[in-house]
């Protein structure tokens, strides 16, 4: 795959920052897990715009690539992206935090097209993804499965049971992306439970591993468009990211893992997002 053009990168920035602004709009209805939503958003934007074989009009298309957000609490960014892709009307986003909403704080596949699997309890997604990938292999189908894991999430033992199985079974249609933003709900991952080094751990479990800047659209695309990184092995992409990326006063602060923004400050926060979007565009020139 050729590298992305500057225009393509600018388009991705536009969509990613529009999604951030929409997440903040949603938060006019109250609290949300903004930190992880924003750290993973550039990766999610590249996946849905450039990597995944999918069709928003046929969310259950049998041959679609699957995406599971294992760290389900990051889902606000995914909701905004799915709306942008046309999986559902944007108005649904504004029902966030209301009774029987289709965009709850953790995703529910039964109520919203585009959600492959319900997540929220950490440590479940990689095993489910591996099962999906094994099913594709059994049926001689060529769909691929992508998962985003949180770095704090990776303290869960079940992540490593799944990683061991994927390595053992050589599941090369599976790609795990670790959103290494360095923070979890109560502090830095290095203080709470040091889950590093991811590169060595996944390699030891039989994965092919690479590290990227999780906010560099070009790098994200270059790596994800080449998976499997090695035939016969699952691929692990360790993405260095910034917690709450784009909302400058929240960046790299664990307090923004889960945040209740005063409603009258949201519009100011959106202004900051738009400023940061322009700064990102500048970098592309």
């Amino acid at each position, binding site marked *: 795959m050729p590298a992305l053009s500057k225009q393509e990168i600018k388009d991705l920035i536009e969509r990613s920052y529009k999604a951030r602004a929409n997440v903040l709009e949603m938060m006019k209805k109250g609290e949300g897990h903004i930190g992880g939503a924003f750290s993973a958003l550039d990766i999610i934007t590249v996946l849905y715009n450039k990597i995944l074989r999918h069709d928003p009009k046929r969310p259950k298309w049998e041959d679609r690539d699957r995406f599971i957000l294992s760290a389900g609490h990051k889902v606000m960014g995914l909701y905004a992206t799915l709306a942008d892709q046309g999986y559902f009307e944007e108005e649904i986003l504004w029902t966030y935090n209301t009774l029987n909403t289709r965009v709850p704080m953790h995703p529910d596949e039964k109520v919203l097209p585009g959600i492959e*699997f319900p997540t929220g309890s950490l*440590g*479940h997604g990689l*095993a*489910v*993804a591996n099962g*999906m990938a094994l*099913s594709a292999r059994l049926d001689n189908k060529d769909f691929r499965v992508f998962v985003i894991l949180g770095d704090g999430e990776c303290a869960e033992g079940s992540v490593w*049971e799944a990683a061991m199985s994927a390595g053992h079974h050589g599941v090369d249609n599976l790609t795990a992306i670790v959103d290494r933003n360095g923070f979890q709900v109560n502090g830095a991952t290095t203080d709470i439970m040091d889950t590093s080094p991811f590169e060595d751990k996944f390699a030891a479990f039989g994965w092919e591993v690479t590290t990227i800047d999780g906010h560099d659209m070009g790098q994200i695309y270059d790596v994800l468009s080449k998976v499997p990184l090695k035939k016969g092995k699952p691929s692990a992409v360790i993405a260095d990211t910034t917690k709450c990326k784009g909302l400058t006063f929240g960046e790299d602060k664990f307090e923004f893992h889960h945040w209740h923004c005063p409603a009258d400050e949201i519009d100011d926060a959106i202004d900051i997002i738009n400023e940061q979007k322009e700064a990102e565009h500048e970098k592309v020139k």
Partner: protein
Amino acid sequence: MKKSNKKIIYDDPRKVVASALVEAGEADPDIVFISCDSSLGASGDPFRQKFPARHFEFGIAEAGAMGQAAGLSISGKKPFITAYMPFITYRCFEQIRDDVAKTNLNVNIMGNNCGLSVGTLGPTHVVLEDVAVMRAIPNMTIFSPADGPQYNAAILKAAQIDGPVFLRVHRQKTPRIYKEGCKVEPGKADVLKEGSDVTLISTSSLVSNTLEAAEMLKGMGIDAEVINAYSLKPIDKDTILGSASKTKKVITIEEHTIMGGLGGITAELLAKECTATLDMIGIEDQFAVVGDYGDLLDYYGLTAEKLADRVKKLTEK
């Protein structure tokens, strides 16, 4: 119809399950078998040999295995997953709840060696609370077959149920009560013996002891009705309440804690709908003592002789 008058045949539940899995697998190519280092001892070996590509070994890692079962199932497969009872229920409980039950996937969980069947292994392996725990999960069907033909029927039925099924598999050989080719249905119980003085409801391997006890009770002048509650969830409310209304005296008999098991299930039904009295025979709130199966049945008063004696006393009180 159900009661065989011929020579007693004993079935090994694991062997019946093994052949039923192959039969189900032949009929439906979407059926896959998942083991957690448990394929040989727990009924999966014939399936593994017959359909090697459809067998997945996920090792001693049940949480991961259950999640992978969910992933296979949501992609169209119908997994049967097996391990020792504690590991395939408690170790991966949240995966069962979130990944299998909330999604209502056709994942069939076979909990091996239920009740007191492996008593010498001690309380880490002897699980007496599985029904109480598993039945609290929405969407879950629970089968607890009484004999070989019922195990066969339960496997074939589980494959067809659009949702998760928990199948309790006993280790001990069981005398045959039903005819080969019998059917099971979720939400159904069978009246195996009609009677008018007391309703005895049992499940799994204790159904045969209960039937035997009922025969002994006949000689003591007590006419017991015996119900096999092989579907613990959903429970056959009509059959149980109908019998309870008739006899006005119900006794549940199980190799399980009476809290939340068959005793608890029946108490919930009677509390709402019927004025019959209820006694529960089973294990009190405790971990099992160690012993072989025969000794444990005797220790807990669950042999046919002791059951007859206990029922007699409870009926007379």
